[in-house]
């Protein structure tokens, strides 16, 4: 019995907690032979070095072998082959397919036609559920719980799919969200409606300063990209307003942690890297455990099996 991992928005509270327990096992012992003899394919129809390395490391550290491509220029897609044909062909070779695609909905479609599980490593502007899984794990790891947290989302809330997925996945845990963004990149109404439908509290802030940050348990920063603005004057006007500087942390709670999906350009001052609130590099490391979890879960390997697993490489 296998199941694809296309979105995290539909996952129940129980399923998310189960996956977090599994990721804890991998954090304790990341090197195992659980997937010995298996083949994992990584098909990147759009380059994403960070995500690909994370998935490939996850597979390698569990003893699987990895095939695939990092650059769509080398595939038959450029000769006019359909996604379906590529997926059906690779399904003959691999036990699970990790797929990144520039088209939205590509992973859902692939999961409907493939005889092996599909893991969505990002489909255009739509979903990036493995990022959400590692975000959830990091929040749990730093706060000891997912319940009743104040989560501040800062930057590009309009196009940032990671913040949208996080918002949806947190709905089971009674969060309060705070939205801090320039008008052009404000949280879309669809997601505010989603909050209302699911009883999620949210507050919108104009300012981004020490007083606002003082209420945060999680400060989730995203990149404000120049190319997202239709009015470049507006970009020049707002770009510095959403930079996080060290003095803005003066009133921050002790438990507050700063997360960022990376790559960072200049939205977090480098002086913050040594501050105990900074957590984005540890967050990136959690990507490994989250992706080990996702690969195993899609292949039908259970938490019990992982706990009983004797093939740990010390």
């Amino acid at each position, binding site marked *: 019995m296998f199941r694809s991992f296309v979105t995290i928005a539909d996952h129940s509270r129980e399923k998310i907690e189960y996956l977090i327990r599994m990721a804890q096992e991998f954090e304790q012992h990341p090197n195992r032979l659980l997937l010995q003899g298996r083949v994992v394919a990584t098909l990147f129809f759009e380059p994403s070095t960070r995500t690909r390395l994370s998935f490939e490391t996850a597979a390698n550290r569990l003893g699987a072998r990895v095939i695939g491509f990092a650059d769509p220029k080398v595939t038959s897609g450029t000769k006019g082959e359909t996604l379906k044909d590529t997926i059906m062909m690779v399904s003959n070779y691999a036990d699970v397919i990790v797929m990144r695609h520039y088209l*939205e909905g590509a992973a*859902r*479609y692939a999961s409907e036609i493939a005889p092996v599980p599909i893991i969505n490593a990002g489909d255009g502007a739509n979903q990036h559920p493995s990022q959400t899984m590692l975000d959830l794990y990091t929040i749990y790891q730093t706060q000891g719980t997912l319940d009743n947290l104040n989560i501040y989302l800062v930057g590009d809330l309009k196009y940032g799919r990671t913040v949208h997925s996080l918002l949806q996945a947190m709905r089971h845990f009674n969060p309060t969200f705070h939205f801090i963004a320039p008008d052009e990149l404000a949280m879309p109404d669809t997601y505010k409606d989603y909050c209302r439908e699911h009883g999620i509290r949210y507050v919108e802030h104009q300012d981004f300063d020490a007083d606002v940050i003082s209420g945060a348990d999680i400060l989730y920063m995203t990149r404000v990209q120049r190319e997202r603005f239709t009015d470049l004057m507006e970009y020049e006007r707002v770009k510095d307003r959403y930079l996080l500087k060290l003095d803005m942390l003066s009133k921050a709670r002790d438990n507050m942690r700063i997360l960022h999906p990376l790559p960072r350009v200049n939205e977090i001052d480098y002086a913050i890297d040594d501050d105990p609130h900074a957590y984005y590099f540890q967050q990136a490391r959690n990507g490994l455990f989250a992706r080990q979890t996702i690969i195993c879960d899609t292949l039908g390997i259970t938490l019990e099996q992982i706990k009983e697993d004797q093939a740990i490489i010390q």
Partner: protein
Amino acid sequence: MPVGSADGKRNMKRQELIVSALDHGTVIDHIPCDRLFQVISLLHLEQMTSKVTIGFNLKSHKMGTKSIIKIADRFFTDEELNQLSVVAPNVSLSIIRDYEVVEKKQVCLPDELRGIIHCNNPKCITNNEPMRTLFHVTDKQQGIVRCHYCNHEQNIKEVKIV
């Protein structure tokens, strides 16, 4: 009833009769003329083997001009008929048995639309791969549908028909 009565309804009935009466089957009336051929293709009438009568550019009190289709010996499921709601939400359906109208129906948006409309999102996989579209209807009153693949919500009035 005297011939040439001023009763408009009667006149309309006579005009429908010009198209020919039906003993058994389905009548789809009040089709906007510019949607007639979409209705034909949605119900796959071109593949029918029984008698199909089509009236095009007929006079209508309600609509100015209208089209009508009479399909002999064929009764459609609600699911099939509800597909029409996308192209012609105001059609009148009559089920005929032994020359009698035994049932009148209106169409309503179904819960799902399979292979009927295109997604508005040019970056959606359905617009780039030879595959069937699927939409979930999220608001029947407002006509809001969500693409099963890319999750984009769109108004049914703004989508292209396959």
